[in-house]
């Protein structure tokens, strides 16, 4: 089973919920931090990192001295990554989406591929948790290819928990596409609800079943409850605002370790998800 933890709005508690659920469970599982722009789960899980590898995406390299300036490569590129200016052909690797079109259409066959660094993937272990995350290179624009690469570490059998990035556009889709369940974490505020609605639309579009965790449940208003009822999204857990939880989080501790009474609640959360997915 693969569970993605997502939210729409940032800062609602995705990482808190995903890491604590992982730590509360007493089974072997894989944890993938797919928020490659700002990965944080490692700060709480503190895995011993055993491998680190650089991930690249192919970008064209043109043997410019053999170029006839036919412009076919420039014409097929929808991302303006190749420009023919006078007698010169210029490649802008940062704009390339790695579709390979230029290489296919070059009549001279002088386009080959080299790599643009997307970032690194680090893998490690913390107790029963097999851990992997991607760290996007600062300055790199495209998160989805690195997210897809992180997801290759998904466990063949058993449980994989994915910490997804915020938002509702392509990076989120890359982190929730094809999973069994999306756990959405929200806060009962106007911002939280507004962005939750967008996230729900995205999840529906992909046809994945979902459930809700309401964090800081006693701050804000009750509108999210009415929305959940109307959309028939089950509320699987409520976490009240507790300054102690906020402080534990701030220092990088896990809630289930600092406040063991929470471990059972996170296990219950998982069992509710399991029951939904199995039905």
């Amino acid at each position, binding site marked *: 089973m693969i569970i993605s933890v997502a939210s729409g709005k940032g800062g609602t508690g995705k990482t808190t919920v995903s890491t604590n659920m992982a730590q509360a469970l007493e089974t072997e599982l894989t944890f993938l931090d797919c928020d490659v722009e700002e990965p944080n789960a490692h700060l709480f899980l503190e895995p011993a990192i055993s491998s680190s590898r650089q991930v690249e995406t192919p970008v064209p390299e043109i043997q410019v001295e053999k170029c006839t300036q036919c412009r076919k490569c420039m014409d097929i590129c929808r991302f303006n990554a190749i420009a023919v200016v006078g007698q010169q052909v210029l490649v802008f690797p940062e704009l390339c989406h790695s579709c390979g079109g230029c290489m296919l259409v070059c009549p001279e066959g002088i386009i080959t591929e080299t790599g643009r660094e997307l970032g690194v993937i680090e893998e490690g272990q913390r107790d029963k948790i097999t851990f992997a995350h991607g760290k996007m290179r600062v300055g790199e624009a495209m998160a989805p290819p690195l997210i897809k690469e992180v997801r290759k570490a998904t466990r063949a059998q058993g449980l994989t928990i994915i910490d997804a990035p915020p938002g509702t556009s392509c990076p989120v889709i890359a982190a929730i596409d094809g999973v069994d369940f999306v756990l959405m974490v929200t806060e009962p505020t*106007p911002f939280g609800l507004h962005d939750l609605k967008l996230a729900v639309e995205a999840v529906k579009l992909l046809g994945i079943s979902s459930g809700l965790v309401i964090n800081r449940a006693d701050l804000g208003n009750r509108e999210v409850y009415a929305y959940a009822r109307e959309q028939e999204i089950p509320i699987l857990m409520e976490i009240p605002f507790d300054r102690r939880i906020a402080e534990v989080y701030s220092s990088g501790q896990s809630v289930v370790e600092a406040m063991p009474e929470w471990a059972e609640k996170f296990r219950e959360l998982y069992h509710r998800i399991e029951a939904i997915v199995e039905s």
Partner: protein
Amino acid sequence: MRELVILSGKGGTGKTSLTAAFASMAANKVVCDADVDAADLHLLAQPQVRMITDFMGGGIARIREESCSQCGTCRDLCRFAAIDEQLVINPLHCEGCGVCVDLCPEGAIDFPIQKCGEWFISDSKYGPMVHARLGIAEENSGKLVSLVRKEARNLAEEQGCDLLITDGPPGIGCPVIAAISGATALVIVVEPTVSGLHDMIRVAELASHFKIPGMICINKFDLNLELSAAITEVAAKRNMEVLGMVPFDPIFVHAMVKGENIFEYGEDNKDSATLEAVRAIWEKIEGASVLNNMGVLDMKAVIR
């Protein structure tokens, strides 16, 4: 024209609440919401939309079945696995590269341009505002961010405003790069958590990559004094001014629930430490040398 972009790296640190508070104090400005993925500023600024324009993104491949000879070339060439064995295109996986369109031997693939969202010019509580809504699960968010900023800039010029206040998206990827390129200065809103600090460093690295000066505002500073001190230290090392520290205060949530900024909500409580801190931060931003139209270097030249 000066543009101040409010960023954070990590989501949920208070970007939008502070943007609204700053906007309520700034004179002669245009407000821009560049978080097109999960735009929230309109919930506080309550804009009256004056103009709606469709945002057209890239094309999506579509096979005309009657012209298709089932040769499978498109499927073999697609690097995004968007075309399955039955030669059905999954629009969510289609990258919009057009390789299948150009190389289909039958010319049987169309490439209609998609509407990916909408953008708006509005009158808001804080004056003219440009904002947008990206369609669900759409790509091209960077393009829409660039468009919204460009339109906000045009509007500011038209109306004779000399300041643009832009609410930025979280993260460091394409929408963030699109939100900061060419900006005058950044205000990075940080919370004193290990993740807040970690993410702030990555945004600060991005800012220096694009050579844009950044200033730091610590929100909820009293949640963890040790980390607030650590943030101050990192900021000093990176030559970024710490503008001030805002205490953890439920007024942000209460104001948001009422659709107000903290000053509107806290009108009866003008001497609150939180309001005072945010006011002082805005004064520092206004006086910041990086936002000075003349620039520090020019000033030296004038004196000499």
